């Protein structure tokens, strides 16, 4: 009699193909964003404590360990933005009549918004 071979599960599925690896990195990116938020919060707390506390913290941030962390966090932040921008049209299928608004347009709009916000922040910081 027939004896089907049971379906296989792999505990290392996320290593098996590139799309899965990228997925796991995308999920992981949230962790780095959270850690970076922590850094920002501490920074805000130090500002509140006074200028010397702030300066001490800024000095500490210049340690190689922190710099490395920032570099990694930046890469993950970029990955996070790129992957989620890429995903926007999936959750938001805008239509004009029969025609779907081109996914590239939706994704592009997000990049434009990000760029505008970045410029705005830079202007505020530098002024």
């Amino acid at each position, binding site marked *: 009699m*027939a*004896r*089907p*071979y*049971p*379906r*296989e*599960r*792999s505990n290392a*599925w*996320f290593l*098996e*193909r590139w*799309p*899965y690896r990228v*997925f796991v990195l995308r*999920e992981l990116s949230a962790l780095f964003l959270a850690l970076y938020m922590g850094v920002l919060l501490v920074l805000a707390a130090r500002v509140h404590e006074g200028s010397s506390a702030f300066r001490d913290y800024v000095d500490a941030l210049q340690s190689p360990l922190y710099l490395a962390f920032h570099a990694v966090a930046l890469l993950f932040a970029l990955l996070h933005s790129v992957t989620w921008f890429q*995903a926007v*049209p*999936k*959750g*938001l*299928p805008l*239509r004009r*009549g*029969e*025609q*779907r608004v081109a996914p590239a347009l939706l994704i592009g709009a997000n990049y434009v918004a990000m760029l505008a916000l970045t410029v705005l922040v830079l202007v505020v910081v530098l002024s």
Partner: protein
Amino acid sequence: MTQAPSDATTIRLEIARYRPEQDERPVLERYDVPYRHEWVVLDALNYLKDHIDGTLSYRWSCRMGICGSCGMMVNGVPKLTCSAFLRDYLPGPIRVEPMANFPVERDLVTVLDDFMEKFQAVKPWIIRDGEQPLEEGEYRQTPAQLADFKQFSMCINCMLCYAACPVYQHEDEFLGPAVLALAQRYNHDSRDQGKGERQELIWSDEGIWDCTFVGECSAVCPKHVDPAGAIQQAKVESTVGWYRSFLAPFGRG
């Protein structure tokens, strides 16, 4: 578009064989078949079955990418073998295995029972409070209303998306990409009024909320149904629905 014909005269296939009456587990067997520029993997399998080994079992029928029978793993990626050209895998070998994430009936044939059960569970038919008599003709549906669900109606049930879905691999209960897209197909059809009946199952933990949005289902879909998109949209609708019900006491009914 078409590459220059290759000099290859044969190509090697590594095929997963599982004969339930004699094999403990699937084993790879190697076969050399003629290489032809215009052949797809399915042509090579047919050659093999007709001329070399009549015992190989696999499903196929239309050989034009519409019946959904011939999904397999080709070099580890879910593919319709009638649309996977040998020339894209030169110089070989090409590994052909049954679709991942399903039990194996035999050789390249998988067990569909779980899929078929879930398929029926989402009530994939038009549900209405009342029928308009046929004499009054068709229900009106504008091209825009049609466009709202058309993409989700293009699914050929080939199940490649299940073979690509790690959530389905690990969660037995997960309804899976094609079935959720199918529910969305009916929920978005202007003629249908059954959203409420499907809601409980679709919005449950074995429905859309099991999905972690890996997105590979849409990447492997041969018909661009975009089940990942369907699920994300359903999540948005479910969230909006939840807020609505939450705010209902203060709303205007």
